[in-house]
């Protein structure tokens, strides 16, 4: 039995920017709370808490979530206690896995200072720059607005820290933005975030949630974004968007992703099942995760 378990371990392991991950799964930022860590033991290859910002953010007023066909729309508004209190509580996420931290600022300076602060913390293995939250207005700046702004913000962060940097991009103009992030020195790209969306309550005749669509509904859109970006850049890509089953994970890796984030799906099912579906799939096709990457016949 020990032998078999060992085998599963190697079969699932991947390496991301030189960081070994036991499994290719990572919780998507903002979708796993420290209170729920006990439920996900053995599932993930790294930890990734909710985005932190320089100052505390109260977030948006309710309603913040609404259900849609095969998905949900959220408008949380980056509620978080600010980077200092975040770092004080960070040990809760230190469960023996590489620890990635998601960061966002309102200005270039804030991004730079935040990366410097996070880069100085030894517990943190890499920083994911959230350049794509649809639910906050970034002081007039939308960092994912186009390649020029993406390049600028990634360059600032690159100068601020020697830690690996992942740029998390939205799917609008994703290929150009991906090239810009790469050329500015991003070590990996997280593709993608939620898609701007709106829900309306027809009976009350009121807008319900204006925010980002996530969940199974967006999977084929994210899969295309990942595939296209993998064809355009050299750096590793982390897939995010609608991953709901182990087969979905395999599809993202076949499209070229090195690791895959699980977000909304973890609200409706046990992510352990996703991992074991992936393991069964690998058994069936006789491959390891490392072999899957980009292995589409065409």
């Amino acid at each position, binding site marked *: 039995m020990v032998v078999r378990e060992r085998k599963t371990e190697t079969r699932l392991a991947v390496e991301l920017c030189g960081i070994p991950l036991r499994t290719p799964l990572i919780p998507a930022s903002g979708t796993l709370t420290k209170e729920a860590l006990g439920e996900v033991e053995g599932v993930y290859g790294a930890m990734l808490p909710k985005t932190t910002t320089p100052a505390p953010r109260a977030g948006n007023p309710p309603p913040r979530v609404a259900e849609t066909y095969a998905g949900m729309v959220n408008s949380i508004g980056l509620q978080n206690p600010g980077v200092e209190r975040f770092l004080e509580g960070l040990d809760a996420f230190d469960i023996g896995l590489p620890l990635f931290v998601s960061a966002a600022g309102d200005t270039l300076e804030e991004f730079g200072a935040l990366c410097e602060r996070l880069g100085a913390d030894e517990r943190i293995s890499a920083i994911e720059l959230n350049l794509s939250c649809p639910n906050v207005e970034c002081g007039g700046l939308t960092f994912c607005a186009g390649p020029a702004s993406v390049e600028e913000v990634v360059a600032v962060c690159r100068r601020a820290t020697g830690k690996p940097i992942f740029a998390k991009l939205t799917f609008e103009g994703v290929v150009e933005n991906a090239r810009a992030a790469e050329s500015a020195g991003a070590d990996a790209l997280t593709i993608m975030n939620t898609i701007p969306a709106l829900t309306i309550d027809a009976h009350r005749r009121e807008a319900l949630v204006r925010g980002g669509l996530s969940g199974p509904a967006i999977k084929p859109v994210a899969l295309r974004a990942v595939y296209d970006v993998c064809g355009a850049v050299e750096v590793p890509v982390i897939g995010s968007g609608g991953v709901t089953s182990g087969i979905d994970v395999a599809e993202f890796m076949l499209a070229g992703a090195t690791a895959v984030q699980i977000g909304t799906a973890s609200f409706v099912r*046990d992510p352990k099942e996703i991992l074991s579906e992936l393991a069964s799939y690998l058994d069936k096709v006789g491959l390891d995760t490392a072999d899957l990457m980009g292995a589409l016949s065409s």
Partner: protein
Amino acid sequence: MKFYGVSVEERKASGRYTVLRYRWPGLVEPGQFVMARAVGWPVTLDPFLARPFSFYDHDGEVASLLFEVRGRGTALLDRAHKIEVSAPLGCGFQLGSSSGKAALLGGGVGIAPLKILGRRLTELGVPHDVFLGFADAPTAGAARDFPGAGMATMDGSLGTPGTVLDAVPNLTEYGAVYACGPNPMLAAVKRTVGPDRLCQLSVEERMGCGNGSCNGCAVPVRSGGYVRSCVEGPVFRAEALAW
């Protein structure tokens, strides 16, 4: 989020609501809730999210839920033979501080947690009265499960005409108030009870995950900002809420 499949052992109508019973060994505190859905594989896309329901009752072995059919999620639960639940979730009512007699106020399906709460208060020897408010007589049929409870209906067809607060003869005689119902009712209870007595409210906010992960179920608090009603709540001390 891990869901457990359980078989529905009994389903009966209670007024216009439905009561479901299923085997659920373990500890449950009054005011805690479950995320539930009709069984689907591997997930249900239709509806996509599980729905929050208070524990209606629990005797250590068997749990029950009381719910109103509102939309797709409850319609499917209403005819499901197998359901999936994640529980027990959230922080329930604090029963410790004894301060005389307690008033339990429920509005509509908000009566749900009062059943298990009453049972537990009885076990603890805390004297209490139950008051229930409904829209009309057919809905008020659900009061049968609360023998001796005071009652009000909005249309005046049964009990005191008005809200559940109108059914309480003298609110000042109670040292503690526990309430569950639509948020506007809870706000009225808070206003009426005032700051001097222990008042706990079980709030209802839209939920995404139910385990604290999504920050979706935000409730504004006096100390500033929002807290999650699924982890820090759904039961809050009235004075903690910013409404």
